[in-house]
């Protein structure tokens, strides 16, 4: 088996991490002391990432919003027990990922999520019909993947996480994550058939 799934898609750069982690630690300490503005700051800093993860997993704006809110509230509820404040971002991501997986598994959302109306929702590519087709087809294919494979693709490709980060997000060993990614790629290629040429970055 090819477990050579590598870890640095060139089109996405991870943001400056150490500084973010330090800032998180400071904000969390303030939040623990009851500083309401610190909660605001924490939400602002992380909501985009959590919402994107949820949206890409669930393909439904309201579901994504619900999961994002639930993830933050769970995290805030457990904030006093968080030992490593610098790991807040990955901890929050894992909470959100678990919530997404639970939703996908419990409500059999897979069928509704492949609804063409939701998938064709064009957003940022609306001005370019060909790239809209590609995005739509790829979305439809991703939505057909089993939840854990979907998480691997979303984490690695759409979010630009490394395999180590993806594994942490999914709560599995790195090798398991790589295997899922490998199988997900195979499935995607089968689902997409002749993969359309995407726009050159």
């Amino acid at each position, binding site marked *: 088996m*090819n477990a050579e799934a*590598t870890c640095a898609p060139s089109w996405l750069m991870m943001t400056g991490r150490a500084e973010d982690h330090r800032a998180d630690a400071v904000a969390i300490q303030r939040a623990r002391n*009851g500083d*309401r503005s610190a909660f605001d700051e924490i*939400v602002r800093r992380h909501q985009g990432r959590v919402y994107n993860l949820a949206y890409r997993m669930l393909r439904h704006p309201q579901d994504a919003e619900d999961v994002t809110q639930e993830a933050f*509230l769970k995290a805030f509820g457990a904030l006093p027990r968080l030992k490593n404040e610098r790991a807040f971002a990955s901890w929050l991501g894992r909470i959100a990922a678990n919530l997404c997986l639970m939703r996908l598994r419990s409500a059999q959302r897979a069928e509704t999520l492949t609804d063409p109306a939701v998938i064709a929702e064009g957003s940022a590519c609306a001005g370019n019909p060909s790239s809209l087709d590609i995005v739509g087809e790829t979305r439809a294919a991703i939505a057909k993947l089993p939840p854990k494979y979907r998480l691997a693709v979303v984490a690695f*490709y759409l979010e630009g996480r490394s395999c180590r980060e993806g594994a942490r997000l999914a709560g599995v060993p790195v090798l398991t994550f790589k295997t899922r990614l490998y199988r997900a790629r195979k499935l995607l290629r089968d689902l997409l058939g002749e993969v359309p040429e995407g726009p050159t*970055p």
Partner: protein
Amino acid sequence: MRCRRVRQKLQPLVDGALAEKEAAALRQHLSACAACGLEFEALRALDRALAAEPTVQPPPTMTAAIVSQAAARSLMAPATLIPRRLEALSLAGLALALAAFAVAVFAVGGISITIGPLTVGTTGVIAVIVAAVSAAFGSLYYGTCA
């Protein structure tokens, strides 16, 4: 380089994760081998298709909604951990005190015996006092933290 080995390295090549020397060797193979070249192109196309996914913006009201929900659920009180810990401890203390009291009552053979002072032995009296004091402390502790 053999095709089988090349195929295993195609995804790393797409991801730009190989050393230049190895990448060059692979590219040389790809220029000569049509089958591997097709495989590489398919992987690259999938990569591009996935990369075309746009980023979505969360609704502008989201921050306020989350923060107000956190406030409504009392998640923003300072040091919410301390009262919870104390509460857990005091509940344990209360349970212990009640247990001690029950044992003491059992030891002296029931409440009716404790009413008649002449029939209660020294051990029984001490047990009742200890149990009563523990129960009082337990309730007091619980009362301050609840």
